[in-house]
Protein backbone atom coordinates (compact mmCIF):
# COMPACT_ATOMS: atom_id res chain seq x y z
CA UNK A 1 0.00 0.00 0.00
CA UNK A 2 2.84 2.37 0.94
CA UNK A 3 4.69 1.30 -2.13
CA UNK A 4 1.68 2.06 -4.34
CA UNK A 5 1.26 5.54 -2.81
CA UNK A 6 4.95 6.21 -3.31
CA UNK A 7 4.69 5.19 -7.01
CA UNK A 8 1.72 7.51 -7.46
CA UNK A 9 3.59 10.46 -5.89
CA UNK A 10 6.60 9.74 -8.11
CA UNK A 11 4.33 9.78 -11.19
CA UNK A 12 2.52 13.04 -10.32
CA UNK A 13 5.03 15.10 -12.27
CA UNK A 14 4.72 12.92 -15.34
CA UNK A 15 0.94 13.20 -15.23
CA UNK A 16 1.16 16.99 -14.92
CA UNK A 17 3.56 17.07 -17.85
CA UNK A 18 1.24 14.85 -19.85
CA UNK A 19 -1.73 17.05 -19.07
CA UNK A 20 0.19 20.19 -20.03
CA UNK A 21 1.40 18.59 -23.24
CA UNK A 22 -2.15 17.57 -24.09
CA UNK A 23 -3.37 21.10 -23.40
CA UNK A 24 -0.63 22.54 -25.58
CA UNK A 25 -1.44 20.03 -28.32
CA UNK A 26 -5.12 20.89 -28.11
CA UNK A 27 -4.37 24.59 -28.30
CA UNK A 28 -2.01 23.97 -31.21
CA UNK A 29 -4.67 22.02 -33.06
CA UNK A 30 -7.20 24.76 -32.53
CA UNK A 31 -4.61 27.27 -33.73
CA UNK A 32 -3.75 25.16 -36.77
CA UNK A 33 -7.36 24.73 -37.79
CA UNK A 34 -7.91 28.45 -37.43
CA UNK A 35 -4.78 29.10 -39.47
CA UNK A 36 -6.00 26.71 -42.12
CA UNK A 37 -9.30 28.55 -42.30
CA UNK A 38 -7.54 31.86 -42.63
CA UNK A 39 -5.19 30.43 -45.25
CA UNK A 40 -8.18 29.19 -47.25
CA UNK A 41 -9.78 32.59 -46.97
CA UNK A 42 -6.54 34.20 -48.11
CA UNK A 43 -6.38 31.85 -51.08
CA UNK A 44 -9.99 32.61 -52.00
CA UNK A 45 -9.30 36.31 -51.68
CA UNK A 46 -6.30 36.03 -54.00
CA UNK A 47 -8.33 34.03 -56.51
CA UNK A 48 -11.09 36.62 -56.40
CA UNK A 49 -8.54 39.28 -57.18
CA UNK A 50 -6.88 37.29 -59.96
CA UNK A 51 -10.21 36.37 -61.50
CA UNK A 52 -11.35 40.00 -61.34
CA UNK A 53 -8.14 41.08 -63.04
CA UNK A 54 -8.65 38.40 -65.71
CA UNK A 55 -12.25 39.55 -66.20
CA UNK A 56 -11.25 43.18 -66.61
CA UNK A 57 -8.51 42.16 -69.03
CA UNK A 58 -11.03 40.12 -71.04
CA UNK A 59 -13.37 43.11 -71.00
CA UNK A 60 -10.58 45.33 -72.26
CA UNK A 61 -9.96 42.84 -75.07
CA UNK A 62 -13.66 42.78 -75.92
CA UNK A 63 -13.89 46.57 -76.01
CA UNK A 64 -10.79 46.76 -78.17
CA UNK A 65 -12.28 44.18 -80.53
CA UNK A 66 -15.55 46.13 -80.80
CA UNK A 67 -13.61 49.25 -81.70
CA UNK A 68 -11.54 47.40 -84.27
CA UNK A 69 -14.66 45.90 -85.85
CA UNK A 70 -16.39 49.26 -85.94
CA UNK A 71 -13.35 50.74 -87.60
CA UNK A 72 -12.96 47.86 -90.07
CA UNK A 73 -16.62 47.70 -91.08
CA UNK A 74 -16.72 51.40 -91.95
CA UNK A 75 -14.47 50.48 -94.89
CA UNK A 76 -16.52 48.80 -97.65
CA UNK A 77 -13.38 46.95 -98.77
CA UNK A 78 -12.79 45.39 -95.36
CA UNK A 79 -11.68 41.79 -95.12
CA UNK A 80 -13.19 41.03 -91.74
CA UNK A 81 -15.45 38.27 -93.01
CA UNK A 82 -13.46 36.99 -95.97
CA UNK A 83 -11.97 34.06 -94.08
CA UNK A 84 -12.99 31.23 -91.82
CA UNK A 85 -10.86 29.50 -89.17
CA UNK A 86 -12.54 26.22 -88.20
CA UNK A 87 -10.96 26.01 -84.74
CA UNK A 88 -12.25 29.40 -83.67
CA UNK A 89 -15.94 28.58 -83.31
CA UNK A 90 -17.23 28.51 -79.76
CA UNK A 91 -18.50 25.19 -78.39
CA UNK A 92 -22.07 24.72 -79.53
CA UNK A 93 -21.60 26.85 -82.65
CA UNK A 94 -20.15 24.13 -84.80
CA UNK A 95 -22.81 24.02 -87.52
CA UNK A 96 -21.76 24.62 -91.10
CA UNK A 97 -23.55 27.98 -91.07
CA UNK A 98 -21.15 29.46 -88.49
CA UNK A 99 -18.30 31.55 -89.82
CA UNK A 100 -15.63 32.09 -87.21
CA UNK A 101 -12.23 33.72 -86.99
CA UNK A 102 -9.79 35.14 -84.51
CA UNK A 103 -9.11 38.83 -84.19
CA UNK A 104 -5.66 40.26 -83.55
CA UNK A 105 -5.48 43.11 -81.08
CA UNK A 106 -2.91 45.87 -80.92
CA UNK A 107 0.35 44.89 -79.29
CA UNK A 108 0.82 48.20 -77.46
CA UNK A 109 -1.44 47.16 -74.66
CA UNK A 110 -0.33 46.07 -71.22
CA UNK A 111 -2.31 42.93 -70.49
CA UNK A 112 -0.77 42.41 -67.03
CA UNK A 113 0.68 39.04 -67.86
CA UNK A 114 -2.52 37.66 -69.34
CA UNK A 115 -2.82 35.80 -72.59
CA UNK A 116 -5.75 37.22 -74.53
CA UNK A 117 -7.76 35.65 -77.32
CA UNK A 118 -10.64 37.25 -79.22
CA UNK A 119 -12.90 35.32 -81.57
CA UNK A 120 -15.75 36.58 -83.72
CA UNK A 121 -18.45 34.42 -85.22
CA UNK A 122 -21.69 34.81 -87.16
CA UNK A 123 -24.42 32.73 -88.74
CA UNK A 124 -24.09 33.38 -92.49
CA UNK A 125 -27.56 32.02 -93.28
CA UNK A 126 -29.88 33.28 -90.57
CA UNK A 127 -28.16 36.47 -89.36
CA UNK A 128 -25.05 37.55 -91.27
CA UNK A 129 -25.45 41.02 -89.76
CA UNK A 130 -25.09 39.86 -86.14
CA UNK A 131 -21.68 38.95 -84.78
CA UNK A 132 -20.87 37.24 -81.52
CA UNK A 133 -17.60 38.57 -80.10
CA UNK A 134 -15.98 36.39 -77.48
CA UNK A 135 -12.91 37.51 -75.50
CA UNK A 136 -10.90 35.33 -73.13
CA UNK A 137 -8.07 36.25 -70.78
CA UNK A 138 -5.91 33.66 -69.08
CA UNK A 139 -3.10 33.96 -66.52
CA UNK A 140 -1.16 30.72 -66.41
CA UNK A 141 0.80 31.41 -63.23
CA UNK A 142 -2.27 32.46 -61.25
CA UNK A 143 -4.54 29.79 -62.74
CA UNK A 144 -7.03 32.55 -63.47
CA UNK A 145 -9.23 32.78 -66.57
CA UNK A 146 -12.24 34.83 -67.59
CA UNK A 147 -14.46 35.07 -70.63
CA UNK A 148 -16.79 37.85 -71.74
CA UNK A 149 -19.00 38.06 -74.81
CA UNK A 150 -21.16 40.58 -76.59
CA UNK A 151 -23.30 40.47 -79.73
CA UNK A 152 -23.19 43.23 -82.32
CA UNK A 153 -25.33 44.47 -85.16
CA UNK A 154 -23.07 45.05 -88.15
CA UNK A 155 -23.67 47.07 -91.31
CA UNK A 156 -22.95 44.04 -93.48
CA UNK A 157 -26.46 44.33 -94.89
CA UNK A 158 -29.35 46.77 -94.56
CA UNK A 159 -33.03 46.30 -93.81
CA UNK A 160 -34.94 45.64 -97.02
CA UNK A 161 -38.13 47.29 -95.88
CA UNK A 162 -41.71 46.34 -96.60
CA UNK A 163 -42.35 44.71 -99.96
CA UNK A 164 -44.41 47.11 -102.02
CA UNK A 165 -44.23 45.45 -105.43
CA UNK A 166 -46.12 42.19 -104.96
CA UNK A 167 -45.79 40.79 -108.45
CA UNK A 168 -43.92 37.77 -109.82
CA UNK A 169 -42.17 40.05 -112.34
CA UNK A 170 -40.81 43.50 -111.59
CA UNK A 171 -39.11 45.32 -114.44
CA UNK A 172 -37.77 48.70 -115.35
CA UNK A 173 -39.09 48.63 -118.92
CA UNK A 174 -41.37 46.87 -121.34
CA UNK A 175 -42.17 43.17 -121.47
CA UNK A 176 -42.98 40.98 -124.45
CA UNK A 177 -43.18 37.31 -125.36
CA UNK A 178 -41.07 35.65 -128.05
CA UNK A 179 -44.14 33.59 -129.00
CA UNK A 180 -47.53 34.99 -128.12
CA UNK A 181 -49.27 33.01 -125.38
CA UNK A 182 -46.29 30.76 -124.68
CA UNK A 183 -45.37 32.10 -121.23
CA UNK A 184 -47.24 32.36 -117.97
CA UNK A 185 -47.29 35.07 -115.30
CA UNK A 186 -49.32 34.24 -112.22
CA UNK A 187 -50.30 37.04 -109.90
CA UNK A 188 -50.71 36.73 -106.16
CA UNK A 189 -53.99 35.03 -105.46
CA UNK A 190 -56.22 34.96 -102.50
CA UNK A 191 -56.26 31.20 -102.19
CA UNK A 192 -52.53 30.60 -102.66
CA UNK A 193 -53.56 27.94 -105.13
CA UNK A 194 -51.91 26.70 -108.28
CA UNK A 195 -51.08 28.97 -111.17
CA UNK A 196 -53.88 29.06 -113.70
CA UNK A 197 -57.59 29.25 -114.11
CA UNK A 198 -59.62 32.11 -115.35
CA UNK A 199 -60.57 34.52 -112.64
CA UNK A 200 -58.62 32.57 -110.07
CA UNK A 201 -55.69 34.90 -109.72
CA UNK A 202 -56.09 38.42 -108.48
CA UNK A 203 -53.58 41.17 -108.20
CA UNK A 204 -50.70 42.23 -110.39
CA UNK A 205 -48.71 39.83 -112.52
CA UNK A 206 -46.19 42.31 -113.90
CA UNK A 207 -45.07 45.50 -112.24
CA UNK A 208 -42.96 47.84 -114.35
CA UNK A 209 -41.36 50.95 -112.91
CA UNK A 210 -40.87 52.53 -116.32
CA UNK A 211 -42.80 52.84 -119.57
CA UNK A 212 -41.80 55.05 -122.48
CA UNK A 213 -43.87 58.16 -123.09
CA UNK A 214 -44.36 57.63 -126.84
CA UNK A 215 -46.42 60.75 -127.50
CA UNK A 216 -44.35 62.90 -125.17
CA UNK A 217 -47.32 64.36 -123.33
CA UNK A 218 -45.85 63.64 -119.91
CA UNK A 219 -48.43 60.98 -119.13
CA UNK A 220 -48.45 57.23 -119.68
CA UNK A 221 -51.76 56.53 -121.32
CA UNK A 222 -53.57 53.19 -121.31
CA UNK A 223 -52.51 52.65 -124.92
CA UNK A 224 -48.90 53.28 -124.02
CA UNK A 225 -49.18 50.88 -121.10
CA UNK A 226 -50.66 48.17 -123.32
CA UNK A 227 -47.98 48.74 -125.94
CA UNK A 228 -45.30 48.38 -123.30
CA UNK A 229 -46.87 45.31 -121.78
CA UNK A 230 -47.05 43.14 -124.88
CA UNK A 231 -48.15 39.92 -123.23
CA UNK A 232 -51.17 37.93 -124.30
CA UNK A 233 -54.16 37.64 -122.01
CA UNK A 234 -53.71 33.89 -121.78
CA UNK A 235 -50.20 34.34 -120.45
CA UNK A 236 -51.12 37.05 -118.01
CA UNK A 237 -52.91 35.18 -115.24
CA UNK A 238 -54.26 37.76 -112.90
CA UNK A 239 -54.33 40.48 -115.46
CA UNK A 240 -52.49 43.63 -116.17
CA UNK A 241 -49.36 45.32 -115.13
CA UNK A 242 -48.88 48.45 -113.17
CA UNK A 243 -47.05 51.23 -114.93
CA UNK A 244 -46.26 54.72 -113.72
CA UNK A 245 -49.05 57.06 -114.70
CA UNK A 246 -46.63 59.90 -115.38
CA UNK A 247 -43.62 59.80 -117.65
CA UNK A 248 -40.27 59.17 -115.99
CA UNK A 249 -36.81 59.83 -117.42
CA UNK A 250 -35.48 57.03 -119.58
CA UNK A 251 -33.08 54.88 -117.51
CA UNK A 252 -29.49 55.88 -118.11
CA UNK A 253 -27.76 52.88 -119.62
CA UNK A 254 -24.31 54.41 -119.21
CA UNK A 255 -24.72 54.79 -115.45
CA UNK A 256 -27.60 52.58 -114.44
CA UNK A 257 -29.37 53.58 -111.25
CA UNK A 258 -31.58 50.60 -110.63
CA UNK A 259 -34.85 51.54 -109.00
CA UNK A 260 -35.80 47.87 -109.18
CA UNK A 261 -32.78 46.93 -107.06
CA UNK A 262 -33.92 49.32 -104.34
CA UNK A 263 -37.47 48.03 -104.60
CA UNK A 264 -36.32 44.50 -103.94
CA UNK A 265 -33.29 44.96 -101.68
CA UNK A 266 -33.92 48.29 -99.97
CA UNK A 267 -30.65 49.92 -98.91
CA UNK A 268 -28.66 46.69 -99.20
CA UNK A 269 -25.95 47.11 -101.83
CA UNK A 270 -24.87 44.59 -104.48
CA UNK A 271 -21.46 44.37 -102.79
CA UNK A 272 -23.12 43.31 -99.52
CA UNK A 273 -25.16 40.59 -101.22
CA UNK A 274 -22.05 39.41 -103.04
CA UNK A 275 -20.09 39.27 -99.76
CA UNK A 276 -22.74 37.12 -98.10
CA UNK A 277 -22.85 34.81 -101.11
CA UNK A 278 -19.07 34.45 -100.90
CA UNK A 279 -19.24 33.77 -97.17
CA UNK A 280 -21.82 31.03 -97.70
CA UNK A 281 -19.67 29.52 -100.45
CA UNK A 282 -16.60 29.77 -98.20
CA UNK A 283 -18.44 27.77 -95.57
CA UNK A 284 -19.24 25.06 -98.11
CA UNK A 285 -22.98 25.63 -97.98
CA UNK A 286 -24.95 24.18 -100.86
CA UNK A 287 -28.45 23.05 -101.71
CA UNK A 288 -27.66 19.74 -100.01
CA UNK A 289 -26.33 21.01 -96.67
CA UNK A 290 -28.36 21.74 -93.59
CA UNK A 291 -29.07 24.58 -93.52
CA UNK A 292 -29.02 24.98 -97.29
CA UNK A 293 -27.25 27.83 -99.01
CA UNK A 294 -29.66 30.71 -99.50
CA UNK A 295 -27.76 33.39 -101.45
CA UNK A 296 -26.12 32.88 -104.84
CA UNK A 297 -24.17 35.65 -106.54
CA UNK A 298 -23.52 34.45 -110.07
CA UNK A 299 -20.79 35.93 -112.28
CA UNK A 300 -20.75 33.10 -114.82
CA UNK A 301 -22.47 33.72 -118.20
CA UNK A 302 -23.39 30.02 -118.49
CA UNK A 303 -26.98 28.84 -118.49
CA UNK A 304 -28.26 28.04 -114.99
CA UNK A 305 -29.61 24.52 -114.68
CA UNK A 306 -29.72 23.76 -110.94
CA UNK A 307 -33.12 23.76 -109.27
CA UNK A 308 -32.95 25.55 -105.94
CA UNK A 309 -35.11 26.54 -103.02
CA UNK A 310 -38.35 25.39 -101.48
CA UNK A 311 -41.47 27.12 -100.22
CA UNK A 312 -40.12 26.98 -96.67
CA UNK A 313 -36.54 27.90 -97.62
CA UNK A 314 -36.49 30.20 -100.65
CA UNK A 315 -33.21 31.28 -102.24
CA UNK A 316 -31.82 34.42 -103.84
CA UNK A 317 -30.07 34.29 -107.21
CA UNK A 318 -28.37 37.43 -108.46
CA UNK A 319 -27.04 37.29 -112.00
CA UNK A 320 -24.46 40.04 -111.73
CA UNK A 321 -23.51 42.71 -114.23
CA UNK A 322 -20.52 40.49 -115.04
CA UNK A 323 -22.77 37.51 -115.81
CA UNK A 324 -25.03 39.79 -117.84
CA UNK A 325 -22.14 41.56 -119.60
CA UNK A 326 -23.42 40.64 -123.02
CA UNK A 327 -26.63 38.78 -122.23
CA UNK A 328 -27.96 37.43 -118.95
CA UNK A 329 -27.64 33.66 -118.53
CA UNK A 330 -30.89 31.82 -119.16
CA UNK A 331 -32.41 29.53 -116.60
CA UNK A 332 -32.92 26.22 -118.36
CA UNK A 333 -36.56 25.26 -119.06
CA UNK A 334 -36.59 22.27 -116.72
CA UNK A 335 -35.17 24.21 -113.78
CA UNK A 336 -37.29 25.41 -110.90
CA UNK A 337 -36.21 28.23 -108.63
CA UNK A 338 -38.17 29.03 -105.48
CA UNK A 339 -37.26 32.48 -104.28
CA UNK A 340 -36.00 35.67 -105.90
CA UNK A 341 -34.07 36.04 -109.14
CA UNK A 342 -32.43 39.36 -110.00
CA UNK A 343 -30.87 40.16 -113.36
CA UNK A 344 -28.41 43.05 -113.28
CA UNK A 345 -28.92 44.14 -116.88
CA UNK A 346 -27.51 47.60 -116.24
CA UNK A 347 -30.70 49.21 -117.59
CA UNK A 348 -30.16 47.63 -121.03
CA UNK A 349 -33.10 45.70 -122.50
CA UNK A 350 -30.83 43.90 -124.94
CA UNK A 351 -29.12 42.02 -122.09
CA UNK A 352 -32.41 40.39 -121.13
CA UNK A 353 -33.64 39.75 -124.67
CA UNK A 354 -34.69 36.16 -125.39
CA UNK A 355 -34.23 35.23 -121.77
CA UNK A 356 -35.77 32.06 -120.35
CA UNK A 357 -36.85 31.99 -116.72
CA UNK A 358 -37.48 28.26 -116.29
CA UNK A 359 -40.05 28.07 -113.52
CA UNK A 360 -39.65 30.69 -110.85
CA UNK A 361 -41.89 30.63 -107.80
CA UNK A 362 -41.37 33.95 -106.12
CA UNK A 363 -40.20 36.98 -108.01
CA UNK A 364 -38.02 37.84 -110.98
CA UNK A 365 -36.70 41.39 -110.95
CA UNK A 366 -34.50 43.05 -113.51
CA UNK A 367 -32.99 46.45 -114.07
CA UNK A 368 -34.45 46.82 -117.56
CA UNK A 369 -37.31 45.65 -119.73
CA UNK A 370 -37.73 41.99 -120.66
CA UNK A 371 -38.18 41.71 -124.43
CA UNK A 372 -39.01 38.43 -126.12
CA UNK A 373 -39.27 36.20 -123.08
CA UNK A 374 -38.97 32.68 -124.38
CA UNK A 375 -41.80 30.18 -124.45
CA UNK A 376 -42.21 27.89 -121.45
CA UNK A 377 -41.10 30.52 -118.96
CA UNK A 378 -43.35 30.51 -115.93
CA UNK A 379 -43.31 33.07 -113.16
CA UNK A 380 -45.51 32.49 -110.15
CA UNK A 381 -45.83 34.65 -107.07
CA UNK A 382 -44.72 33.38 -103.66
CA UNK A 383 -45.38 35.65 -100.70
CA UNK A 384 -42.27 34.74 -98.70
CA UNK A 385 -39.85 34.86 -101.62
CA UNK A 386 -37.66 37.44 -99.81
CA UNK A 387 -37.07 35.21 -96.82
CA UNK A 388 -33.54 34.36 -98.02
CA UNK A 389 -32.37 37.94 -97.61
CA UNK A 390 -34.92 39.50 -95.29
CA UNK A 391 -32.78 39.18 -92.19
CA UNK A 392 -34.33 40.35 -88.94
CA UNK A 393 -33.53 43.86 -87.77
CA UNK A 394 -35.05 45.60 -84.79
CA UNK A 395 -37.30 48.45 -85.84
CA UNK A 396 -35.81 51.91 -85.77
CA UNK A 397 -32.19 50.83 -85.98
CA UNK A 398 -29.60 52.80 -87.92
CA UNK A 399 -28.17 49.89 -89.89
CA UNK A 400 -25.22 51.91 -91.14
CA UNK A 401 -23.22 51.59 -87.94
CA UNK A 402 -21.99 48.98 -85.52
CA UNK A 403 -24.14 48.71 -82.41
CA UNK A 404 -24.21 46.39 -79.43
CA UNK A 405 -27.20 44.09 -79.05
CA UNK A 406 -28.91 45.09 -75.85
CA UNK A 407 -28.73 42.48 -73.11
CA UNK A 408 -26.22 40.30 -74.95
CA UNK A 409 -23.26 40.90 -72.63
CA UNK A 410 -22.24 37.83 -70.66
CA UNK A 411 -19.28 36.87 -68.55
CA UNK A 412 -17.92 33.69 -67.09
CA UNK A 413 -14.72 32.16 -65.85
Amino acid at each position, binding site marked *: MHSTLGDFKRQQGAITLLMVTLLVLLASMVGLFTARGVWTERLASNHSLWN*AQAKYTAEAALETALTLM*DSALSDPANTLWTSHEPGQCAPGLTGIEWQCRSLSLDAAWDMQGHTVQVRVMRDVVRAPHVALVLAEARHTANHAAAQVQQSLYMPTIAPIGVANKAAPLVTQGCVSEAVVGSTRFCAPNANQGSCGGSGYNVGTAIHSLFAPDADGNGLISLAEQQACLNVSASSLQGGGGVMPSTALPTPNTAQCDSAVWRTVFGATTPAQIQAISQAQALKGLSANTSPARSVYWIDSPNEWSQSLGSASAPVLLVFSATACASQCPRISPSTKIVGTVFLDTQCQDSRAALWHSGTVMGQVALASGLPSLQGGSQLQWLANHRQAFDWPWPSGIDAQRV*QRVRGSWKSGS
Partner: protein
Amino acid sequence: MSTSRGFTLIEALVAAAVLGLGILSVNTLAMHSLNAGAASHQQITALALASNALECWRSGPTLCPASAALGAGVDSLSTLSGTTYTVRSGVTPTAYAQLQAIQVSVSWQPASNNTGNSHDNPMATGSGQLIISTRASSVPVFVSSTNP
Protein backbone atom coordinates in the same frame (compact mmCIF):
# COMPACT_ATOMS: atom_id res chain seq x y z
CA MET B 1 10.57 12.50 0.80
CA SER B 2 12.91 15.30 -0.08
CA THR B 3 13.57 13.53 -3.39
CA SER B 4 9.85 13.63 -4.20
CA ARG B 5 9.68 17.41 -3.51
CA GLY B 6 12.67 18.00 -5.80
CA PHE B 7 11.05 16.14 -8.61
CA THR B 8 7.82 18.18 -8.22
CA LEU B 9 9.64 21.51 -8.56
CA ILE B 10 11.54 20.42 -11.67
CA GLU B 11 8.38 18.93 -13.14
CA ALA B 12 6.51 22.15 -12.46
CA LEU B 13 9.27 24.16 -14.15
CA VAL B 14 9.29 21.85 -17.18
CA ALA B 15 5.53 21.97 -17.40
CA ALA B 16 5.55 25.77 -17.20
CA ALA B 17 8.21 25.95 -19.89
CA VAL B 18 6.25 23.62 -22.19
CA LEU B 19 3.06 25.52 -21.54
CA GLY B 20 4.79 28.84 -22.12
CA LEU B 21 6.33 27.67 -25.39
CA GLY B 22 3.00 26.25 -26.51
CA ILE B 23 1.12 29.41 -25.70
CA LEU B 24 3.78 31.51 -27.43
CA SER B 25 3.56 29.38 -30.57
CA VAL B 26 -0.20 29.39 -30.61
CA ASN B 27 -0.22 33.13 -29.97
CA THR B 28 2.21 33.73 -32.84
CA LEU B 29 0.10 31.57 -35.11
CA ALA B 30 -3.06 33.35 -34.04
CA MET B 31 -1.49 36.75 -34.63
CA HIS B 32 -0.28 35.66 -38.04
CA SER B 33 -3.72 34.30 -38.92
CA LEU B 34 -5.44 37.46 -37.79
CA ASN B 35 -3.03 39.54 -39.84
CA ALA B 36 -3.55 37.34 -42.87
CA GLY B 37 -7.32 37.52 -42.39
CA ALA B 38 -7.16 41.29 -42.11
CA ALA B 39 -4.99 41.49 -45.23
CA SER B 40 -7.54 39.37 -47.13
CA HIS B 41 -10.31 41.60 -45.92
CA GLN B 42 -8.40 44.68 -47.01
CA GLN B 43 -7.73 43.17 -50.43
CA ILE B 44 -11.37 42.21 -50.97
CA THR B 45 -12.50 45.65 -49.83
CA ALA B 46 -10.01 47.28 -52.18
CA LEU B 47 -11.28 45.13 -55.04
CA ALA B 48 -14.87 46.10 -54.27
CA LEU B 49 -13.91 49.78 -54.20
CA ALA B 50 -12.05 49.45 -57.51
CA SER B 51 -15.02 47.69 -59.12
CA ASN B 52 -17.39 50.34 -57.78
CA ALA B 53 -15.20 53.09 -59.19
CA LEU B 54 -15.09 51.39 -62.60
CA GLU B 55 -18.81 50.76 -62.74
CA CYS B 56 -19.47 54.29 -61.55
CA TRP B 57 -17.29 55.70 -64.32
CA ARG B 58 -19.05 53.51 -66.88
CA SER B 59 -22.53 54.46 -65.78
CA GLY B 60 -21.74 58.14 -66.38
CA PRO B 61 -22.54 61.32 -64.48
CA THR B 62 -26.31 60.83 -64.63
CA LEU B 63 -26.33 57.61 -62.66
CA CYS B 64 -23.12 58.23 -60.77
CA PRO B 65 -22.32 61.87 -60.02
CA ALA B 66 -18.90 60.89 -58.70
CA SER B 67 -17.85 59.54 -62.10
CA ALA B 68 -16.64 62.92 -63.33
CA ALA B 69 -14.29 63.28 -60.41
CA LEU B 70 -13.07 59.73 -60.84
CA GLY B 71 -12.50 60.28 -64.52
CA ALA B 72 -10.47 63.37 -63.72
CA GLY B 73 -8.09 61.37 -61.53
CA VAL B 74 -9.23 62.87 -58.24
CA ASP B 75 -8.49 60.78 -55.18
CA SER B 76 -11.32 59.39 -53.14
CA LEU B 77 -10.65 58.53 -49.50
CA SER B 78 -12.66 56.22 -47.32
CA THR B 79 -11.97 54.58 -43.97
CA LEU B 80 -13.44 51.16 -43.40
CA SER B 81 -12.76 48.81 -40.49
CA GLY B 82 -9.67 50.64 -39.41
CA THR B 83 -8.12 50.98 -42.83
CA THR B 84 -7.96 54.05 -45.02
CA TYR B 85 -8.42 53.33 -48.72
CA THR B 86 -7.40 55.78 -51.41
CA VAL B 87 -9.07 55.23 -54.78
CA ARG B 88 -7.54 56.93 -57.79
CA SER B 89 -8.69 56.39 -61.36
CA GLY B 90 -7.34 57.67 -64.61
CA VAL B 91 -8.69 57.62 -68.14
CA THR B 92 -6.24 57.89 -71.00
CA PRO B 93 -6.81 57.92 -74.76
CA THR B 94 -5.61 55.08 -76.96
CA ALA B 95 -4.60 54.87 -80.59
CA TYR B 96 -8.32 54.67 -81.41
CA ALA B 97 -10.52 57.70 -80.82
CA GLN B 98 -13.41 55.49 -79.74
CA LEU B 99 -11.40 53.57 -77.18
CA GLN B 100 -10.24 54.71 -73.75
CA ALA B 101 -7.93 53.00 -71.29
CA ILE B 102 -9.08 53.07 -67.68
CA GLN B 103 -6.91 52.36 -64.68
CA VAL B 104 -8.16 52.29 -61.10
CA SER B 105 -5.66 51.98 -58.28
CA VAL B 106 -6.65 51.44 -54.67
CA SER B 107 -4.00 51.81 -51.97
CA TRP B 108 -4.62 51.21 -48.30
CA GLN B 109 -2.95 51.74 -44.94
CA PRO B 110 -4.01 51.56 -41.30
CA ALA B 111 -6.08 54.50 -40.22
CA SER B 112 -4.43 56.78 -37.63
CA ASN B 113 -5.98 56.69 -34.13
CA ASN B 114 -7.72 60.02 -34.42
CA THR B 115 -9.47 59.24 -37.66
CA GLY B 116 -12.07 56.72 -38.53
CA ASN B 117 -12.87 53.73 -36.42
CA SER B 118 -9.57 51.94 -36.18
CA HIS B 119 -10.73 50.17 -33.01
CA ASP B 120 -13.04 48.13 -35.26
CA ASN B 121 -10.17 46.05 -36.51
CA PRO B 122 -6.99 46.42 -34.50
CA MET B 123 -5.26 43.82 -36.66
CA ALA B 124 -5.54 45.98 -39.82
CA THR B 125 -1.91 46.97 -39.69
CA GLY B 126 -0.79 46.20 -43.24
CA SER B 127 -0.73 48.46 -46.25
CA GLY B 128 -0.92 47.60 -49.92
CA GLN B 129 -2.03 48.56 -53.40
CA LEU B 130 -4.31 47.06 -56.02
CA ILE B 131 -4.45 48.10 -59.67
CA ILE B 132 -7.25 47.25 -62.10
CA SER B 133 -6.89 48.10 -65.79
CA THR B 134 -9.46 47.80 -68.53
CA ARG B 135 -10.74 49.59 -71.62
CA ALA B 136 -14.03 51.08 -72.72
CA SER B 137 -15.29 51.56 -76.25
CA SER B 138 -17.88 54.11 -77.29
CA VAL B 139 -19.63 51.65 -79.65
CA PRO B 140 -23.24 52.28 -78.63
CA VAL B 141 -25.93 49.90 -77.47
CA PHE B 142 -28.97 49.81 -79.71
CA VAL B 143 -32.02 50.80 -77.73
CA SER B 144 -35.30 50.71 -79.59
CA SER B 145 -37.36 53.86 -79.39
CA THR B 146 -40.33 51.68 -78.52
CA ASN B 147 -38.60 50.33 -75.39
CA PRO B 148 -39.53 51.97 -72.10
